[in-house]
């Protein structure tokens, strides 16, 4: 086979000449160790290649071979509960083969070639099939039924289909197409930089419940929506992403650890197999796919990792699932882009980032959405994308944050000031926003009730009032406020401390169902209403604030799920205490 040769090596960038049949974004094998790389620029006979592995030792003159295919991922049974690097190499297998440190040139199949899966056909001989049609299923884990689909671009008549135990490479179905017979296996491939096709995109209408009160109540994200979490270091981006990984009510969660800490990935790996899904009781790992390209792993593979993740996520969406893709952190992805662009000596845009940064970010988030999937039976899938952003110095005016805000619909603004006071999640309630609030209203009206919308509005109003009053307090002191203003201040504080603050490490507090959120918020807002009435009747504000019920409100977050009678009882106690208070007034 004809080969090209290396002309130049500079860090992760290699320039090769004379690579036969070089096409943009084709995967190439470089050097004697056959390192994996991807062509990212062509100029005459020269091809610039980004290498996904450490390049030390590569020399001009070393061979370069093109595989003729773009960077692709393997899609099929075996994805769930796997942990991959940025170009879908299985880290577990790498460990068994090479020990605890990652060596170069490792070539291992992403999906286990030995394992057999039980395939149950859903179509029969003679059926017409077209792209996206489900031809059968594999029960991959107790939580995930893996639906085997006809790959895009293939249609015909089923000639033969078998039930039984198969590996991912054995043919299970024979299809007669216009071009002849084609074998279908449990596995298909898809190039990562190309969005997988669907029939039609729809507007999101259902919230993605996360169990995180500040998100679900104030700044909800929709299934099929996009959100970003920017914040300086130490503000808790990763904890939020981990919470979503654990508690978001998606059927499949794909987590991409892009250029972040190794120990954080370990934390996920150790915790996920232990945690149970609050809805199904199954282990959460049984619905998760993990991609780990930590900050010390090769930078080009970091660039690819978000695409690897989103392609896997799209594949499950195409089966008709609600999928969440969590990318932590997209800034590292952008920086990898910048690094490669710098080595290519491209004209830099803002802060050294390439000029195409904005369009790459937009393309990435555009792969989210609620869709009608290709093929039969007709089904709906949703892919929600949540990316964290790590702005340098916490300065949101930097290019990655700004380009992200332009395309995402939900903005959870993390602040180190809140984090320093140990207010977690440190999502600022004044600057964050969700553009889905309106689109989701019909859903809340139907499923939760108008009360939920009213409580939310009132809570937001009180927080706004608090911000205004605080200005005044700063100037003249709290004593100068009217009793009703002081009550508003205290209620807002209660909303912040007793509702918005949520511990990710407390067993009960880590997850709150929508129903419990409603009861908790109701307790706080009801206290405010009763307090106002009491003030109108002349009760001193100090006594209102000293009512024992406030202690109970503060502790309400620790009431386990499913105890609505406990909340009803608290509401009665509260009414009672206020009645008591007005009786004292009358008596005294």
């Amino acid at each position, binding site marked *: 086979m004809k080969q090209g040769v290396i002309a130049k090596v500079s860090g992760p960038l290699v320039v090769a000449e004379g690579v036969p049949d070089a096409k943009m974004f084709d995967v190439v094998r470089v050097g004697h160790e056959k390192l994996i790389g991807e062509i990212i620029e062509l100029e005459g006979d020269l091809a610039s290649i980004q290498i996904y592995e450490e390049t030390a030792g590569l020399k001009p003159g070393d061979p370069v071979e093109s595989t003729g295919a773009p960077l692709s991922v393997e899609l099929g049974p075996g994805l769930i509960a796997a942990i991959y690097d940025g170009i879908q190499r299985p880290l577990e297998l790498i460990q068994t083969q090479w020990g605890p440190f990652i060596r170069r040139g490792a070539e291992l199949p992403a999906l286990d070639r030995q394992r057999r899966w039980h395939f149950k056909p859903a179509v029969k001989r003679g059926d017409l099939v077209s792209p996206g049609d489900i031809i059968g299923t594999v029960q991959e884990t107790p939580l995930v039924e893996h639906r085997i689909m006809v790959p895009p671009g293939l249609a015909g008549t089923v000639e033969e289909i078998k039930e039984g135990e198969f590996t991912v490479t054995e043919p299970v179905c024979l299809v007669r197409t216009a071009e002849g017979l084609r074998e279908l296996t449990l596995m298909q491939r898809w190039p990562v930089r190309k969005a997988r096709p669907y029939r039609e995109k729809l507007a999101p209408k259902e919230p993605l419940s996360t169990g995180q009160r500040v998100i679900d109540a104030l700044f909800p994200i929709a299934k099929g929506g996009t959100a970003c979490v920017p914040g300086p*270091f130490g503000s808790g981006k990763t904890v939020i992403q981990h919470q979503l990984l654990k508690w978001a009510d998606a059927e499949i969660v794909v987590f991409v650890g892009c250029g972040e800490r190794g120990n954080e990935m*370990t934390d996920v790996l150790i915790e996920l197999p232990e945690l149970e899904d609050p809805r199904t009781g199954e282990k959460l790992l049984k619905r998760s796919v993990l991609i780990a390209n930590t900050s010390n792993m090769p*930078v080009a593979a970091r660039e690819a990792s978000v695409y690897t993740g989103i392609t896997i996520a799209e594949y499950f969406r195409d089966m008709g699932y609600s999928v969440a893709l969590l990318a932590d952190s997209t800034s590292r992805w952008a920086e990898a882009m910048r690094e490669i662009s710098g080595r290519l000596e491209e004209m830099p845009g803002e802060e050294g980032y390439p000029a195409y940064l904005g369009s790459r970010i937009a393309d990435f988030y555009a792969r989210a959405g609620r869709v009608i999937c290709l093929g039969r039976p007709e089904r709906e899938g949703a892919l929600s994308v949540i990316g964290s952003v790590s702005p340098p110095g916490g300065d949101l005016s930097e290019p990655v944050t700004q380009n992200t805000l332009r395309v995402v619909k939900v903005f959870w603004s993390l602040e180190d000031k809140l984090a320093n006071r140990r207010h977690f999640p440190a999502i600022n309630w004044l600057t964050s926003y969700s553009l889905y609030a309106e689109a989701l209203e019909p859903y809340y009206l139907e499923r939760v009730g108008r009360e939920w919308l009213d409580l939310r509005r009132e809570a937001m109003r009180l927080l706004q009032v608090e911000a205004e009053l605080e200005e005044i307090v700063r100037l003249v002191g709290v004593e100068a406020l009217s009793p009703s203003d002081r009550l508003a201040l205290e209620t807002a504080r209660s909303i912040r401390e007793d509702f918005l603050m949520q511990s990710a490490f407390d067993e009960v507090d880590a997850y709150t169902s929508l129903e419990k959120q409603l009861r908790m918020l109701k307790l706080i807002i009801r206290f405010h209403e009763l307090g106002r009435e009491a003030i109108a009747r002349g009760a001193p504000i100090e006594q209102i604030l000293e009512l024992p019920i406030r202690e109970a409100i503060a502790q309400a977050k620790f009431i386990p799920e499913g105890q609505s009678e406990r909340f009803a009882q608290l509401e009665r106690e509260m009414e009672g205490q206020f009645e008591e208070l007005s009786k004292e007034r009358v008596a005294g």
Partner: protein
Amino acid sequence: MQKEYLTIAEVAGPIMVVEAVRDVGYAELVEIELPNGEIRRGQVLEVDRDKAVVQLFEGASGLNLYKSRVRFLGRVMELGVSSDMLGRVFSGAGRPRDGGPEIIPEKRVSVLGEPINPYSRDYPSEFIQTGISVIDGLNTLVRGQKLPIFSGAGLPHHRIAAQIARQAKVLGKEEQFAIVFGAMGITFEEADFFVTDLRNTGALERAVLFINLADEPVVERILTPRVVLTTAEFLAFEKDMHVLVILIDMTNYAEALREVSAARKEVPGRRGYPGYLYTDLASIYERAGRIKGKKGSITQFPILTMPQDDKTHPIPDLTGYITEGQLFLSRELHRKGIYPPFDVLPCLSRLKDKGIGEGKTREDHAGVLNQLYSAYARGLDVREMAEILGEAALSKLDRIYLEFAEEFEQRFIQQGEYEDRPIEQTLDIGWELLALLPRSELKRVKEEHIEKYLPKKEAPAPPRWARLAR
């Protein structure tokens, strides 16, 4: 037969271009023989056909274009490692500088290291007691963590680092313990302070020191942390030792990186630092941790001085994004004469939750930690308010918090340089301070812990609303 080249085409700063080379690999180690016979070392940064760009570790002075001989060694920069390194002092590039003999290596390893497979990592969860209350009590350190100190010029970070090196231990265990110390571009006095301190306390025999002083070659600094960590990895993962790595000062390291980048005319990122600063720093910091099935561990204490105390400067900023928390020093507390002057509020240890609590420190630890934090935060708010409005405008409760903040700084933060506080004592001081607050304010500690640990007051307090209403 090794080829020698006499074809140096260009030297600019720490960068040298050699032409007409053959068979040269990226990142390969280079030896340059000067006309006077001196040998310098370098590393290939880029090869373009027959042209190699070489970074000189020990500077370019004395280099002659036509008479210097260049040899490409066909291997990457390696370090010969051995247990005999304990007790020795080396240069920033790994050559003995204590007058002792060369090390006879047990093995030679690439200083670049290989990334740890995230799947193979073991989660750090063993509490390390440093004897410093702010660290043990509020920002607990665990084995395998990387926790930097963000300092400023003139602050006593080196004294704190020495105290940690002296006192750090895992409770109830006798294990092999070693310190690997890397100094980059620090002054002779600072380096001498560490060496003397380690010698006086007898810790030197458990330590390996790599020292690159301020007047020594800048580019050697790029090598120093890698040499340090290669040694640490050997001791930890092959000799089963628990290694504490101290790197001082990472700012000088990043400056060296910037110098090389500028000399290569690379597109600069923020403030002139190269765009790959994050990746580069990560390749250092991520070499901390524990590995499943291995006994040893690497815990990192990088120290950096923030230019103009600015934490948004790229070096502290990127460091904070990679490390598992950070400890800030405060100029204000230092001026007040408080040692160690930790700026408590922005300090954070991300891994503390796994290292505290019953069986590790004490059952009440998490509650005390949260309560102290929030009370001190409130106290500082009040202090700020008092500066604007005057103390007279404060409510009674505010005044209590103000007093709390003062006492907290004096009794909890402040401690002696040779005072090794056990964790129980740290927590007990915490409870004594919490006793200053009204019981009703103690929302973050559990009731049963209050009963058990809160020092009892003499007279019963009046009902709280009565006090407030007055």
